């Protein structure tokens, strides 16, 4: 039934799109219907141009997300072990977090050029703060009952952080990773738009500038698809890693 509704709703959206084109209410030159768009999408995928761009963007976003996740959690674990470090780092992280990745691109080009180093830096910088801040907060929020119980079982120091706090905080840590997944895609696309020579962001800009509008819509669809895929991936990994949590919260709700 749920599926059925989704089909109706997405079908309605497509119909609306087609109607907009038929009525010519918007300039048809700039607004191709679903038909030409899907054609361009198919041609781009088969021809390899869009497929390559999609692969490059996804690879950048994924690698950046992975790196930022590992780094963010590692630093958060350090700050969970050494509280002073957390008090020192948190305000700095809060200061850097709202900085738009795009703002860093022009200056970063100076130091890192236009190659993979630029992407690595921008993506890491954009994604690491949400991961770190969520992980740090989650590790700090582990209940005192759990911590005291762990102490009385003889867990201390790193043992306590890794074997008690980390598993307890994992479900919440994934919230940060999910936020970072969205940020990673934005950062990858933006950097490609501003400094790239390939990838979906570049394709978007390029096809808009050369007025190949169906190609631009196709790239937009792929960007949307990438977002859906990244979300699904993070959710799948979460389901694997914190299976017990998912199972428990579901049985609670029922």
């Amino acid at each position, binding site marked *: 039934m749920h599926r059925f509704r989704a089909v109706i*709703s997405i079908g309605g959206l497509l119909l609306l799109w087609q109607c907009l084109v038929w009525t010519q209410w918007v300039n048809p030159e700039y607004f191709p219907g679903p038909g030409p768009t899907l054609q361009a999408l198919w041609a781009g995928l088969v021809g390899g141009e869009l497929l390559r761009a999609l692969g490059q963007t996804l690879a950048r976003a994924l690698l950046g997300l992975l790196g930022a996740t590992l780094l963010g959690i590692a630093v958060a674990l350090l700050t969970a072990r050494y509280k002073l470090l957390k008090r020192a780092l948190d305000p700095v992280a*809060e200061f850097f977090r709202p900085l738009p990745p795009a703002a860093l691109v022009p200056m970063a080009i100076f130091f890192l050029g236009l190659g993979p180093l630029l992407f690595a830096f921008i993506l890491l910088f954009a994604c690491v703060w949400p991961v770190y801040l969520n992980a740090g907060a989650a590790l700090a929020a582990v209940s005192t009952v759990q911590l005291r119980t762990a102490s009385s079982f003889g867990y201390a120091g790193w043992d306590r952080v890794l074997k008690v706090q980390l598993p307890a905080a994992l479900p919440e840590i994934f919230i940060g990773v999910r936020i970072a997944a969205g940020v990673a895609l934005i950062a990858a696309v933006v950097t490609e738009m501003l400094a790239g020579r390939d990838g979906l962001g570049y394709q978007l800009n390029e096809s808009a500038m050369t007025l190949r509008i169906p190609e631009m819509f196709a790239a937009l669809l792929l960007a949307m698809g990438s977002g859906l895929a990244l979300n699904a991936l993070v959710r799948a990994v979460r389901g694997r890693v914190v299976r017990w949590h998912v199972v428990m919260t579901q049985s609670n709700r029922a």
Partner: protein
Amino acid sequence: MTAGMASPTVLLRRAGPALVLLAAVLLGWELTARALGNPNVPTFGAVLRALAGNAAVIGPALLQTLRRVLIALALAIVTMVPLGILIGRIRWLGDLADPVIDLLRPLPPPAIVPLVMLFAGTGDAAKITVIVYTAAFPILIHAIDGIRGTHPLLHTVSRSLRLSRREALWHVDLPATLPVVMTGIRLAVAAALLVAVTAEMLLSSDGIGVYLLRSQETFRIADGLAGIVAIAAVGWAVNAAFLQLDRRLLHWHYATTAE
């Protein structure tokens, strides 16, 4: 409410470690830059001087950016909160809207910049459109979640008070949703600022994003870094101000949840 009024010594003790870390990082930067002696790696002092020297340029550029963010946020809030409440309250509308929202939400907002450019050019309207689009989703989604998450008891109470549908929406549902909506607005503020700078860079005309691009094109690295510092400071200040506003407007909520 007294949290912001902590005595100087308490404040210093709380902020102490952060200040020490910050000082260490800045000192490290200054010393490295001096040791390198490379004009492409400006010292922290040079960046500060650039910040002071370019205040007359950076200030108005930032204000221009903030103006767009504020207009776009206001538009997004005024349209998306009522829409979210409707989608959350009216079952068939929700069934229709949910899949569409799920589909559109993961689209990275800067990706629509070229599309918007075709229709609205590169002026104010284009940038504000992109920012509205960005800010719309967090607000809409939180409004929907907020209204769906209100306690069923509230509904029953408003029924037994014989409130009309409209009265119930205005006096019960809206206030009950506000704390959740506020979270959405806070996320929207951060995202709006981020996309505003991006949109300015892609649709260059003015604003802080263009200032950054110009600094790069003319190899004024210290000036560019000064711009980045200014953006970070403004982003942080806007966020802090919003948190204060949130606490003040929703003090009744925080008072009952005992935080």
